[in-house]
């Protein structure tokens, strides 16, 4: 019928909908992949009226010149205007194309962005002037004028709100523009220099104690040649550099010391010359992994800005030219601009610095109350190093130069450290002296520039002062692995007297977290691949003079969120556990509710005898249609009373087994009820404890013995062992010694008997057997018949389903006949089968026999088969009937008791053929 199928389908639909809801709700608790420091770009895709326009801006080639060059710019306009503006400057060797992601983020955050290609790069005209005050800086001022004239830019009393943001090459430009143009409201300068002379041709990191000479310099050939290479073109070996810079570089790379004019040229490209006039709030971001522009450059910038009275904030982050550039700084820059360009919040004095990840700890960020400079703020930690005085040599030409790192190469990553250690394995040991500390007893945080004293003397006796060039570098050994500390190598170039001198060395400022057990090592080398080095061969005797001082910075706050689980996930776990507990509680409550059996018995009588509880089985209107549409059981109703042995008859497919499965609670009926002893039966109803079932064959654990199977089965009921009545049940099974053998060796009949015995465990009040005689031989069938009879006589009830009609007739007291899912007859056996005194005569002449029998006055009727007659002798004896028939000349082929039940059955189910 339609409703049943729709009901099943709607149940399935509800089930899956509920499932989907649970899945969706719980999936919301899972966080998305951790976002990088970049803010989400959800807003950028939603804007509809943003604009992007590329054009060229003509600027004067040099101050006062009428000749112009064109700068390639792109203007980004946000959705909401007027808005504050940001001038974006790119790094060396790049063009405005490298600024596109940053520009789009700023545009999405609601700023007008002007990204441009500096002169000498890309499609812009002119020559590279290294941010000179005569070239790039006036260019930037012209571009700010372009912004000022743009109506989309927010103005405050005619003054445009403009911020300048740049990294490296663009960072110095930002600082210089910010200092020379009063229209600039804030400056963000990342990984950039203060004094280009000191950055590219650094002065010696070591000074002879007691000497007051001006420091000698060494040339950072590694990095500078790489930068120069970014500017060369196929047609011009000087690239697009100005002739002055080309000449400067040529002389430096040839090994000449820089002249005063050279240094002046470099200083002209440095913020150091103009920062005294700066007023705009400035953010200085400097990377720890930076051998080109180290933390000392930002320190110099900070000092000059503070002296000029400009509010400045310094931040050290774990990145830089040798560690991924500017990645990770986007959110810092965006929040700075929000605080100091859109509004004008006061710049906090706090200073935060990143601690790089080490072998045993994650990276973290520490905030200090104020910026202390490179000497640290808390007391310095002295670590004593030990190592023999060593003689180290500088080979002729300075080659092979020791390789510690490569420009731009992140030596912190696993691949980077593997490669640098591979290359570094070839470093000649004669070029280095190593001084190692004992394993540190407690954890230490180095933040700033470490200082140490060395004794340096020429190895070969001389009479004149010598020019000593050495390179100092720190490294840390954790377990087996050695890691070079970020910050790079410090060049030491000093003039030492013939007897040697003590040199006070200031190593590059860096940050590192040492754990207990780490060993700190100071290595002094005579050459370094990233520096120019000395060409003349030399040998020095180097030894330590005292411990190394490690400055630290007192921490006000530590943000160690890396490596910690996110709060959302922890909340999600809590919620899920809570939901699971609630579901468990619901399941338990539902289970308890099913425990109620007869709710009103105690209202009728305080103690009611069991017989008042209802018949052992009462089925009303039971219906089941399978999913295939087949109607297996159609409105079946019957009742079984105590003490009855009920036979359930029907052909194959009549619905007997399905009905019995519903009685056992294995199948849910579509409609109707089955109740036992007054309690409705459903899956797991407690009243099923009073039923013993044997349905559709035996089921045992094949590897266990028959006895063990029964024992485990009874143990599963949870009832005490003495209630099982094992001995009686095993007598029924009649297996003998085989009871202790594994079930997999049993024959079908043995399994059948054991299963029936299992059904009888505990002597249940209602025994339900589905085809119990399958596979049993006749003596066993007879024995079973006796067992069932006695079972019923003891006051219990038995239901047997079978299609062995003879058996049913002998065993059962009542019968229910089913066909095609319906009950076609029910009642006592005699009623269904007919009079048991009937006889079936096989005769040769039916007509004559009929006449004779009629004369005798006995009841008779035609038999099913031709040539047979059914006769009820009544008061006549059988032999008298036979004699009369023979006398009448009728041949008798056979006399047998009428197989009444079979005939009744066949007529009831309407079979056309005789049953097999």
């Amino acid at each position, binding site marked *: 019928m339609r409703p049943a199928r729709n009901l099943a389908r709607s*149940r399935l639909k509800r089930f899956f909908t*509920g*499932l989907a809801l*649970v899945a969706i709700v719980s*999936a919301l608790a*899972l966080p*998305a*992949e*951790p976002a990088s420091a970049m803010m989400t770009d959800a807003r950028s895709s939603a804007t509809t009226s943003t604009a992007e326009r590329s054009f060229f801006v003509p600027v004067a080639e040099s101050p006062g010149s009428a000749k112009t060059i064109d700068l390639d710019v792109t203007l980004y306009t946000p959705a909401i205007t007027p808005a504050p503006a940001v001038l974006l400057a790119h790094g060396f060797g790049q063009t405005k194309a490298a600024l596109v992601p940053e520009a789009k983020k700023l545009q999405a955050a609601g700023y007008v962005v002007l990204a441009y290609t500096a002169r000498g790069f890309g499609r812009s005209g002119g020559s590279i002037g290294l941010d000179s005050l005569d070239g790039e800086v006036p260019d930037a001022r012209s571009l700010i004028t372009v912004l000022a004239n743009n109506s989309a830019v927010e103005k405050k009393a005619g003054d445009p709100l403009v911020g300048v943001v740049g990294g490296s090459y663009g960072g110095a430009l930002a600082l210089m523009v910010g200092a020379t143009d009063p229209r600039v409201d804030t400056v963000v300068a990342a990984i950039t220099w203060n004094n280009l002379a000191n950055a590219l041709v650094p002065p010696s990191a070591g000074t002879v104690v007691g000497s007051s000479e001006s420091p000698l310099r060494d040339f950072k050939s590694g990095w500078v040649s790489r930068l120069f290479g970014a500017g060369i073109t196929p047609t011009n070996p000087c690239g697009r550099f100005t002739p002055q810079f080309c000449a400067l570089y040529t002389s430096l790379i040839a090994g000449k010391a820089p002249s005063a004019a050279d240094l002046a040229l470099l200083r002209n490209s440095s913020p150091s010359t103009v920062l005294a006039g700066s007023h705009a709030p400035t953010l200085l971001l400097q990377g720890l992994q930076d051998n080109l522009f180290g933390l000392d450059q930002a320190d110099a910038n900070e000092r000059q800005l503070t002296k000029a009275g400009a509010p400045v904030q310094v931040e050290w982050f774990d990145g830089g030219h040798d560690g991924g550039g500017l990645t990770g700084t986007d959110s810092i820059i965006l929040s700075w601009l929000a605080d100091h360009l859109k509004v004008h919040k006061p710049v906090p004095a706090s200073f935060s610095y990143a601690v790089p990840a080490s*072998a*045993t*700890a*994650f990276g973290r960020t520490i905030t200090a109350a104020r910026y202390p400079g490179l000497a640290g703020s808390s007391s310095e930690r002295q670590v004593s190093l030990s190592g023999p005085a060593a003689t180290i040599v500088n080979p002729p030409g300075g080659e092979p130069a020791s390789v510690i790192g490569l420009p731009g190469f992140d030596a912190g990553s696993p691949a980077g450290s593997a490669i640098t*250690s591979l290359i570094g394995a070839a470093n000649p040991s004669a070029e280095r002296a190593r001084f190692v500390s004992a394993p540190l007893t407690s954890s230490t945080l180095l933040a700033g520039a470490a200082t140490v004293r060395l004794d340096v003397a020429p190895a070969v006796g001389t009479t004149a002062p010598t020019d000593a060039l050495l390179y100092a570098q720190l490294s840390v050994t*954790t*377990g*087996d*692995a050695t890691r070079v500390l970020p910050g790079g190598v410090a060049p030491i170039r000093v003039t030492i007297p013939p007897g040697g001198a003590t040199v006070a060395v200031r190593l590059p400022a860096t940050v590192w977290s040492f754990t207990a057990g780490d060993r700190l090592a100071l290595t002094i080398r005579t050459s370094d691949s990233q520096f120019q080095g000395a060409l003349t061969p030399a040998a020095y005797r180097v030894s330590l003079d005292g411990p190394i001082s490690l400055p630290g910075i007192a921490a006000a706050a530590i943000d160690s969120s890396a*490596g910690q*689980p996110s709060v959302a*996930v922890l909340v*999600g*776990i809590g919620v*899920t556990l809570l*939901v699971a507990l609630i*579901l468990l509680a619901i399941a338990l409550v539902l*289970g308890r509710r099913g*425990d*109620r*059996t*007869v709710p009103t*018995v*105690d209202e009728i009588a*305080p*103690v009611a*005898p*069991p017989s008042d*509880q209802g018949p052992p089985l009462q089925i009303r209107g039971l219906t089941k249609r399978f999913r295939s549409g087949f109607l297996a059981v159609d409105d079946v109703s019957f009742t079984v009373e105590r003490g009855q042995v009920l036979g359930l008859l029907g052909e194959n497919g009549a619905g007997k087994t399905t009905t019995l499965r519903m009685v*056992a*609670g*294995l*199948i*849910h009926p579509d409609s109707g009820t089955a109740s036992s002893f007054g309690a409705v039966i459903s*899956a*797991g109803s*407690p009243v099923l*404890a009073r*039923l013993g*079932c044997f349905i559709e064959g*035996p*089921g*045992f*654990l094949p*590897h266990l013995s028959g006895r063990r199977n029964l024992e485990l089965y009874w*143990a*599963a*009921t*949870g009832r005490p062992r003495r209630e099982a009545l094992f001995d009686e049940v095993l007598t029924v099974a009649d297996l003998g010694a085989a009871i202790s053998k594994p079930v997999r060796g049993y024959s079908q009949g043995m399994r059948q008997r054991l299963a029936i015995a299992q059904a009888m465990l*505990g002597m249940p*009040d209602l025994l339900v057997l589905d085809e119990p005689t399958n596979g049993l031989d006749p003596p066993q069938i007879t024995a079973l018949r006796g067992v069932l009879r006695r079972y019923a006589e003891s006051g219990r009830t038995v239901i047997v389903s079978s299609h062995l009609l003879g058996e049913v007739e002998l065993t059962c007291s009542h019968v229910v006949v089913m066909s095609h899912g319906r009950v076609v007859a029910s009642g006592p056996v005699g009623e269904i089968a007919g009079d048991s005194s009937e006889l079936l005569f096989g005769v040769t002449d039916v007509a004559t026999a009929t006449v004779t029998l009629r004369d005798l006055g006995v009841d008779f009727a035609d038999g099913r088969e031709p040539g047979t007659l059914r006769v009820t002798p009544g008061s006549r004896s059988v032999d008298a009937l036979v004699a009369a028939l023979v006398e009448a000349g009728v041949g008798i082929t056979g006399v047998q008791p009428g197989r009444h039940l079979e005939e009744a059955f066949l007529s009831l189910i309407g079979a056309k053929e005789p049953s097999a």
Partner: protein
Amino acid sequence: MNPKDTLIAGSATTGRVRRPSTMPFRVELARQLSQWRVRIVLIILVALPIIVRVALLIGGPPSSNTNATTLIDLAQVSGGTFAAFVIELTQGILITLIAALLFGDMIAGEASRSTLKYLLTIPVPRLRLLGVKVAVSSAILLAGIVALTVVALVVGVVSYGPGGIQIPGGPLLDLGDSIGRIALATATGASGLLWAAGLGTLLTVVVNSPLAAAGGVVLISILSRILDSITTLGNVRLFLPTHYATAFQQFLAAPTDLAPVTDSILSGLVWALVLGTAAALWFRRKDISG
């Protein structure tokens, strides 16, 4: 008098049949442990560290490599590292397979042996049967995993000395710290099996063949790993059940990132909850034919 009558008479006064606790935990445990299949699985888990030790013995010490970056190179350095190595070997296919075998057989195995209907007509309430079977399978699985870890530690310490875990490219941890880490790694690995337990429970009530149920769990595990390796799927991979399968390695390395560990626990709990609830709902309403 029939003892049952006493029971019923007693119930008549209260209106409630006090049902005894059917299918106790120990009975189901006895039934499961009586199967050779389960015994062999437990024996394999316990014997595996010994097998690995013998294999390393036959293979000889590793070639001296100063840049040992993987646990296989370091496995023979100390007892703790050996145990960590064994755990790394077994997490993944082996214990997923064992979980699939144990959980896939629960109901489907009974159905295929025709014993399910007899258990249900005792009557054991459906949810109770499912619950006890899940509890027993979980207990056996956890016992096996813990035994594996304990035996690995013992074999390691006996063979290679009482040192802790050697971090590749890092320090040698001490034994007490390492034992704690190994225990946490084992627990995290077990949480990575929650989804397999849930899926096994669902499949065991839906299909009638224990092989199909166990095979289904293994197939889904492999499919999930395949999809997980397609990195262009991006954040979709977070929903794959085996995405956090390597979270246990956090405890065997330094520094320890707890984020993947908690993600793994949450993912496992959610999958187990969803699949387990589906299994319970399905089993409650199912028509039993086995």
